[in-house]
């Protein structure tokens, strides 16, 4: 078996997130492999639909919940369009986990600020649940989440769950024009809303994920709030094929996102050439 051969997994649940986005729960066919399988928050995998090909997504479920993994997929290309059509019982392939991870263990005792845009909540959700499953070990948890429109917010059921908890501060926002008449969240772009919410930097760590333009405008806001670049983490997306540092397309300067990332601090991102 070579490194490009995936494990088989069965779709055991399908959750509609938005009109074009679904979350799939997968369980490995090989029970022994499933038992042994472990990963860290922030790692990714190569998911395949046989006949369509492979695509790269983070593992969106937390490592604290074993027995399955989840991925959240927006239908955008050939593989994702095929993935979106999958039903419970269907077979997919999975290779991974690949890449580095968020140093969650280093954050014990610190406040955490999560900032996400659109489907960028998927990797952040992995960390959020990882942290909430170990809630006692961390300080205040603040989540700022935005999407283009109300319809584009993912994990709506979990947003409700987080909003209802008294140990989580959740602020949701949609871009101007994306609100519905009954929308009771904020209206505005994520970086601006983050500035309004103004979580205390103190001993906090920030985790940012979203489209490149959102990441770009969020960094200065965090800097203004007093966050040190080493305490700001993000996870980058690049088109990938192999996931293991061979196929040559995910490098930004001399950084291979698949092997050196996908998790980087703001310090590391700022040191990269302005290619991303």
């Amino acid at each position, binding site marked *: 078996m*070579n490194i490009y051969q*995936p494990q*088989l997994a069965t779709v055991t649940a399908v959750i509609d997130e938005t009109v074009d986005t679904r979350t799939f729960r997968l369980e490995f066919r090989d029970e022994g492999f499933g038992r042994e399988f472990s990963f860290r928050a922030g790692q990714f995998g190569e998911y*395949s639909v*046989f006949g369509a090909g492979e695509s790269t997504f983070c593992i969106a479920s937390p490592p604290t919940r074993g027995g399955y993994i989840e991925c959240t997929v927006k239908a955008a290309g050939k593989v994702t369009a095929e993935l979106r059509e999958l039903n419970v019982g269907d077979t997919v392939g999975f290779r991974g986990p690949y890449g580095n991870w968020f140093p969650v263990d280093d954050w014990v005792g610190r406040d955490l600020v999560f900032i996400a845009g659109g489907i960028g909540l998927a990797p952040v959700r992995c960390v959020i649940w990882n942290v909430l499953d170990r809630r006692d070990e961390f300080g205040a948890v603040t989540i700022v989440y935005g999407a283009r429109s109300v319809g584009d917010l993912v994990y709506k059921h979990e947003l409700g769950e987080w909003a209802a908890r008294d140990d989580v501060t959740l602020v949701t926002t949609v871009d101007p024009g994306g609100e519905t008449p009954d929308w009771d969240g904020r209206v505005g772009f994520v970086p601006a809303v983050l500035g309004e919410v103004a979580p205390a930097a103190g001993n906090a760590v920030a985790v940012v994920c979203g489209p490149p333009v959102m990441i770009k405008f969020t960094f200065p806001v965090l800097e203004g709030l007093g966050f040190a670049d080493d305490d700001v983490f993000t996870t980058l997306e*690049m088109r990938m094929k192999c996931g293991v*540092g061979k196929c040559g397309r995910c490098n930004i*300067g001399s950084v291979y996102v698949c092997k050196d990332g996908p998790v980087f601090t703001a310090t590391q991102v700022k040191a990269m050439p302005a290619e991303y």
Partner: protein
Amino acid sequence: MTEPLFLSHEALADLVAGLIAAGTAVIGPAPAGGPVIPGLEERQRPTVTGMYGTLEYREVRSADDLALGPGMPRLSLKQFFLPQNEALFAWKRRGAETEIHETPTTFNPRVVLGAKPCDVAALEIVDAVMNWEYHDELWNGRRAATTIFALACGVEDDHCFCPSVGVAPDTTKGADGLFTPVSGGFLVEATTDKGRVFLESYGAHFSAPPAGGTDEARAYREAAHGRVGANVQIDAVRVKDWIEHHFEDPFWATLGVRCNGCGACTMVCPTCHCFDIVDEEEGVGCGTRRRCWDTCQAGKFTLHASNHNPRADQIARYRQRINHKFAVYPVKFDEVLCTGCGRCVRTCQMGQNIGEILVAIDQYAQQTGEAPDTTDVAAPPAEVAP
């Protein structure tokens, strides 16, 4: 390196016949098969003294097929280790079940005779990325199954620039041994255990070098060094240093606008190893996942699902190619991802000349007055150091 042995042309014919009879594939430069392209020779660049485009590496049927003289095969040796496309595995659906059929990662023994030293050195350079934490069993399996004897190169033309990137016309990097042409045959030396075992196993074909053979071989190799040395003179470390610190520079645009993004340079390159992974359906519910050569010169190479493209234009993509070869790979793996074979220069329809580009970068680096960082000098050619 072992003491040189002599292999006459007649003995080579017997050796090849014996290898093939024993089930070992013999690969080497040979006249290209396929249709004869009218006027091909006339269209060769006047600077090309060899026979670029008329040879190819292929499995031969006898030593008669081998062309162990001047001439640069059109494609490099990489196709025998990273095929243009290869099966990674096959799948078959039966109802709700999916079966995976593995691709074997062990290969039948092969011998490469007379490959260009630059092409062989490229294999060792690419070994590094193919074994970066994850081991590419398909690449490694083919490497393990193959014994390679390079042929000391007489230097093809003024597009050859191997010494500028730390390779030499008679390097044994990546090879198990070296052939050097002498009157009546070749002097053969082994440089690895695999090569020594090969020479011992087929010792009957080899004899002691004829009188003067060793001197003749030395003269041939020295002449090649002299011929290639003047082609491109750069300080590889200064070039790397400049590229690393000048990601944004107007210089890149002057290169990028001259590139039409066809990607031919990456296909003919012995060190370019980027690939795509695609599924090919071969009927209802069955098919093969394949790995295929890909090129960083194509826009879709880095296109995100969101339509964002980090390398949105040819300027960025051309910079990527130069950057990956002469800065990224040296930083990551301590090797330049280029062996100076010059194929990209001979192939480019737009006249891009990587040798000239390297010289230009080196001069530009000196003009902009930046002192080269010599703290992590890899191995600059001493004679061209500033």
